[in-house]
């Protein structure tokens, strides 16, 4: 009954968790069974069996030979397991192979246990007077081995009945052979020990299986994560490669365009030179052909320029140089350049002058406006083209109006794309590739603006861009610049400043630049020598601080300049000192003295007087 229970195959398996391969789980349990304290277990069983055999040897001398055989049989089983263990350790079998190793452990294990169980029958003498002690010894051995082995065989559940069953059955059967109540009680104890061991083993096994499943799931998860990570890395690498490839292609395209348009232009320039050389020699019809050839070359050149511009803009080779630029000059250039072209098409062309000074790159802005005006004239058959400005807060809108064909609303975005030309417009490929506006947009962006466009088909268009406004020129300064007068004497003159104060040098130089002068400065006599050496030009006048550093004076500086140039260079002395020493005063008296802080008007007056042609170079002379 009890044995029946013990031999029942395990019904309750730990609930299977998703993703755990049962074969892997089994293999691990088998491994655990084989690998759990193998040497310790063998030694423990060996000592227990040896101890029991020793007792029987003492109390039942007539059973000595049987006991020896019995102990040797068990030892042989243990040795088989030890040999199997050594072989197993050397092989390190994989999950599938590990099952085949199981029998080499389970069979000797079950045999040695059965041998222990059958011990009462074999070893107890029929009438020696020591039956009770020997039976008790053997029973204790069985109990200890049964319970003590529970941990060992709990690793793999199917092993539990195979190993435990024969021992308990053999023990109970042998004990029932003996008469009296005591052996029955000891036999019952054996059943209890067997059940207890089985129960313990089952409980151990559950927790072992659970932890194994958990670790397998974790491992699967880690493996899955790693695989995912690897996939992600792979995808990122692919994306990175694609991006690099695209960038490479873009750079290659830019390089190709630059190289191609450069190389294609060489023969073209040569053609234009040859046409120019032929023109004076040709006559009549030939002359007309030459003129057409020349025009074709000019158009082709324009196209190459556009492509080259575009590739330069795309490659980032164009860097704007932002400065304060009077708009007037740019607008005048535009007017001069496009006036004849507009007149040839019978268009009214007006450019409204502006006094605005803007912060921009003059060359790039002019290029953008040229493109816009050229486009406006190209797409306008009759009417007018206007260029004008309008203030918008801190910025200035520069716009080009035309009464041309206009652009439909759904084309407004496309006109800035390369090679786009509005359908229905005069589609004249010889006039352009449709690159103008895409160039303008890139130029405008370099200058920090977007291109604005407003258009009504059939009525006209307005294209504009905004630039930061610096200031407006006052009318009087403009008229001053227009009519050469008070400042003309300063324009282009070279003034040398000697002052040990960096701020004073900087301020004076800025002022002189405003007056149209060139300037250079030095903070000491040593620096002055270097400056004179460096500049190709000799100064037209000197502005010297009276006291330069601790020991040097402006008078020495003036002498140094005059000695170097051999000229009687006019000079001004500026000084912050209220009272000069008497000898200094005498020396200084030959030069005009300007008190610090310098009044701008006074400085200019003195400078103009000093620079006057034929004016006395010094007061004394």
């Amino acid at each position, binding site marked *: 009954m009890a044995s029946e229970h013990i031999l029942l195959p395990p019904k309750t398996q730990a609930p299977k968790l998703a993703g755990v391969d049962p074969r892997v789980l089994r293999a691990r349990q088998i491994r655990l069974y084989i690998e759990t304290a193998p040497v310790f277990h063998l030694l423990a069983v060996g000592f227990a069996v040896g101890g029991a055999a020793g007792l029987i040897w003492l109390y039942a001398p007539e059973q000595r030979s049987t006991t020896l055989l019995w102990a040797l049989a068990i030892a042989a089983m243990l040795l088989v397991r030890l040999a199997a263990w050594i072989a197993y350790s050397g092989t390190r079998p994989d999950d599938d192979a590990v099952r085949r190793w199981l029998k080499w452990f389970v069979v000797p294990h079950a045999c040695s246990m059965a041998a222990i169980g059958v011990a009462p029958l074999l070893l107890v003498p029929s009438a020696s007077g020591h039956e009770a002690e020997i039976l008790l010894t053997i029973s204790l051995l069985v109990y200890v081995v049964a319970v003590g082995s529970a941990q060992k065989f709990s690793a793999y559940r199917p092993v539990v009945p195979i190993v435990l069953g024969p021992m308990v059955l053999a023990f109970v059967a042998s004990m029932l052979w003996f008469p009296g109540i005591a052996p029955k009680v000891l036999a019952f104890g054996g059943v209890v020990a067997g059940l207890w061991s089985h129960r313990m083993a089952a409980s151990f096994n559950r927790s072992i299986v659970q932890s194994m499943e958990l670790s397998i799931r974790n491992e699967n998860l880690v493996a899955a994560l790693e695989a995912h990570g690897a996939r992600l890395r792979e995808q990122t690498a692919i994306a990175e490669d694609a991006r690099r490839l695209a960038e490479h292609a873009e750079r290659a395209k830019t390089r190709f365009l630059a190289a191609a348009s*450069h*190389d294609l*232009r*060489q*023969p073209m*320039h*040569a*053609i*234009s*030179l*040859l*046409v*120019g*050389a032929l023109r*004076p020699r040709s006559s009549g019809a030939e002359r007309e052909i030459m003129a057409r050839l*020349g025009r074709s*070359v*000019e158009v082709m*050149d324009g196209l190459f*320029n556009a492509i080259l511009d575009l590739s330069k803009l795309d490659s980032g080779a164009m860097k704007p140089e932002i400065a304060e630029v009077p708009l007037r*000059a740019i607008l005048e*250039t535009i007017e001069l350049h496009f006036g004849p072209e507009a007149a040839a098409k019978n268009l009214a062309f007006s450019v409204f002058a502006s006094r605005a000074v803007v912060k921009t790159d*003059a*060359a790039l802005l*002019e290029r953008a406006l040229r493109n816009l005006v050229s486009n406006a004239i190209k797409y306008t058959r009759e009417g007018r083209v206007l260029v004008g400005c309008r203030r918008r807060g801190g910025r200035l809108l520069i716009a080009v109006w035309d009464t041309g064909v206009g652009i439909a609303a759904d084309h407004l975005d496309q006109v800035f794309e390369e090679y786009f030309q509005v359908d229905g417009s005069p589609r004249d490929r010889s006039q352009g590739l449709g690159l103008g506006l895409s160039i303008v947009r890139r130029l405008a962006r370099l200058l920090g603006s977007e291109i604005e466009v407003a258009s009504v088909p059939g009525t006209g268009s307005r294209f504009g861009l905004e630039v930061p406004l610096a200031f407006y020129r006052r009318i009087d300064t403009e008229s001053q610049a227009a009519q050469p007068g008070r400042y003309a004497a300063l*324009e*282009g*003159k*070279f003034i040398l400043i000697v002052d040990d104060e960096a701020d004073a040098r900087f301020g004076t130089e800025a002022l002189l630049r405003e007056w*149209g002068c*060139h300037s250079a400065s030095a903070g000491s006599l040593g620096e002055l020598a270097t400056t004179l050496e460096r*500049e*190709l*030009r*000799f100064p*037209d006048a000197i502005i010297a601080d009276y006291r330069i550093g601790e020991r040097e004076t402006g008078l020495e500086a003036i002498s140094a300049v005059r000695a*170097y*140039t*051999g000229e009687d260079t006019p000079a001004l002395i500026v000084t912050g000192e209220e009272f000069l020493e008497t000898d200094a005063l005498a020396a200084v008296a030959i030069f005009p003295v300007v008190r610090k802080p310098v009044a701008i008007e006074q400085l200019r007056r003195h400078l103009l007087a000093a620079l006057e042609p034929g004016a006395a170079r010094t007061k004394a002379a």
Partner: protein
Amino acid sequence: MRILIVDDHPVMRGGIRACLHDLDAAIGFVEAADLQEAVRAAKAQPADLVLLDLALPGVSDIEALTAFRASLDPCPPVVVFSATDDPGTVTAALDAGAMGFIPKTSTPAILQSALRLVLAHGIYVPPSVLRRRDGMQPSSSTSAQPALRRLSELGLTPRQQQVCTLMVKGRPVKQIARDLDISAATVKAHLQPILRALGVMNRTEAIVALHRLGFSIAD
């Protein structure tokens, strides 16, 4: 007059040659496709003028000019003839001693008149450089060619004209001093009238101004 044309494109050399020959049949030409050839040719027979392309095999941009000028002493006047025309390159070329700069990107008409100008001892620099300089308006001399003015109009003595011409042709002050056997300070002193008359500070500005005002630097 002997002109050395340095350009790696044979068609380009042919084009320049045809154009210049037409302007003056007495011109002798030497052609070179790279820097080594150019230096060899210039050493074999001194040229009166060198038309130098900046994009030569093996050297890039200004390097072509500085390398060429460094290999020859004295170096003949060099006019750069280049497909680049950005103001930075033009100024750098003038700073490096070029006597003028003709962009190949100019329209054919301007290209021809620029060559004609150079042949007549005039100076050509592209309008992009003129615009960059404050207070200077692009001259109209690029389109129509009025008669070139002579340096003597500025009231220069023959000696001053001589020194000025050497400077414009790219000779450094020290070399002019050595050639004329005078001190560097004296060379500078001779240059003052022209610098003051043009209102400029250095050689590059002088070249730009001479072009703008349409001066010839014929000896």
